[in-house]
């Protein structure tokens, strides 16, 4: 059975975040977000429903952010 996939293109970080949250509320869980740079807020939002990255087993540390400073503690375990 083919699975229907919807692709949305957004030009701004805040509208993307808004879309992710709205979709999540409507019950869509299989979300993939493509960004040109790592975006802290998107990562936090996506990671709420994800198992922690297995790379952490090797790195034994939380994510190293390229953003200036984490604005809120990462909700994921890693």
């Amino acid at each position, binding site marked *: 059975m083919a699975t229907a996939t919807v692709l949305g293109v957004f030009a701004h970080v*805040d509208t993307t975040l808004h879309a992710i949250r709205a979709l999540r509320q409507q019950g869509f869980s299989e979300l993939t977000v493509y*960004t*040109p*740079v790592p975006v802290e807020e998107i*990562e936090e939002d996506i990671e709420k429903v994800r198992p922690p990255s297995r790379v952490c087993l090797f790195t034994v540390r939380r994510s190293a952010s390229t953003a200036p400073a984490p604005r809120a503690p990462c909700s994921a375990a890693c």
Partner: protein
Amino acid sequence: MNLRNRSADATWAGVNRDVIRTVGMPGNTYFAWMCVVGLTLAAGIAAWTWQIYVGMGATGKRTPQMWAMYITTFVFWIGIGHAGTLISAVLYLFRANWRTSIYRGAEAMTIFAVMTAGLFPLIHAGRVWFAYWLMPYPNQRYLWPNFKSPLVWDVFAISTYLIISLVFFIVGLVPDIAALRDSATGVKKRIYAVLALGWEGSDSQWRHYRRAYGLFAALATPLVLSVHSVVSFDFAMALVPGWHSTLFAPFFVDGAIFSGFAMVLILILPMRYYFGWYIYITDKHLDAMAKLILVTSLVLSYFYACEVFTAWYSGDHFERASVFAKATKQYAWAYWLMYFCNSVVPLVFFWKRARTHVGILYVASIFVLIGMWFERFNIIVPGLAHDFYPYTWGTYVPTLTDSAIIVGSFAWFFLLFLGFIRVMPSLSIVEVKAVLPHPLMHGAHGGGH
């Protein structure tokens, strides 16, 4: 222009455009430089060929001067690499955002400097086709390298350094190569597509990428301290007066970072000029690098003072005689030139205007490189010239062969660097974008696209 201005000017789309523009068909100036570099390298290769044909006598190395300029230049190049790792790994872990615009160039400098340095033990050892004897490999006659020799430690230290730096460098390049792939066409697109390792920028790729990048930064950080410490053991383990000192490891590490930052400036300033990257590499970056040069210079001056003080305070006749000979005998000019370049010239950076003045920065950086090359020269050549026993004293006279090989090593380094900046993004697209304000529809900042 400060960072605030930069944020106002630079946009995400602008970063892509300004970096991708530098990859491709270069102009006449570039080809002219490539010709100069290529011819110099050819002269170096010819000299090396001559050395292999004639034998080590062609290099001017005579007892007691068996290390001479090759090991001087080897230590010099290893030192150059250290600032790159400091910028890319240590400043990353400390979240120093100003590193983003310069770290790619600095990291490339590290790789190429280590590749240049690695040639010298081979050139120095003479019969280069037996270079594999340096590696401990299982063999029928149970012949092993002498594990008590710092030469073998060097082999491990430097190969570890090269491998970790290279992996760190390539991991950092992957998202940027993907950006190149997306804008390229034809064969180029295919090549970049292979090198981009299927990067698409999905959220799961980013989260793994960032964790892996943090791991490599953590792995590379101790190497900033350890590699040059091991190189310093080449000297500190020997009983030669002036070498046998516990001071050597921090002394070498500090000098390495000092010379490395000078080399970063020498590479970054022309790139900024030719590529028009004034909004990315701002006065703030130059100021920060000049301050680091100043600090490491002051620490180095302290080590110089310690060196002289311990020679005097130890009461050891040979230590005192070694310092006295360095400062007053046939190599006195090199000794005082080193002090002038390393301890006096960088003091200009106490002056705020000098820290952002391109001309002063460039000239001071050249002085620093000359001074740091002579520092290693002063350790090796005058150190060996005045040993314990007057019978073994001797002056070193360079020849055309070894001088041409030294100059050729600079050409080799610049050839690699010039090649790199035309096929790869020499400014990190991702990291520069990441510190810019994100494009928001309802926000205070308009990032644009």
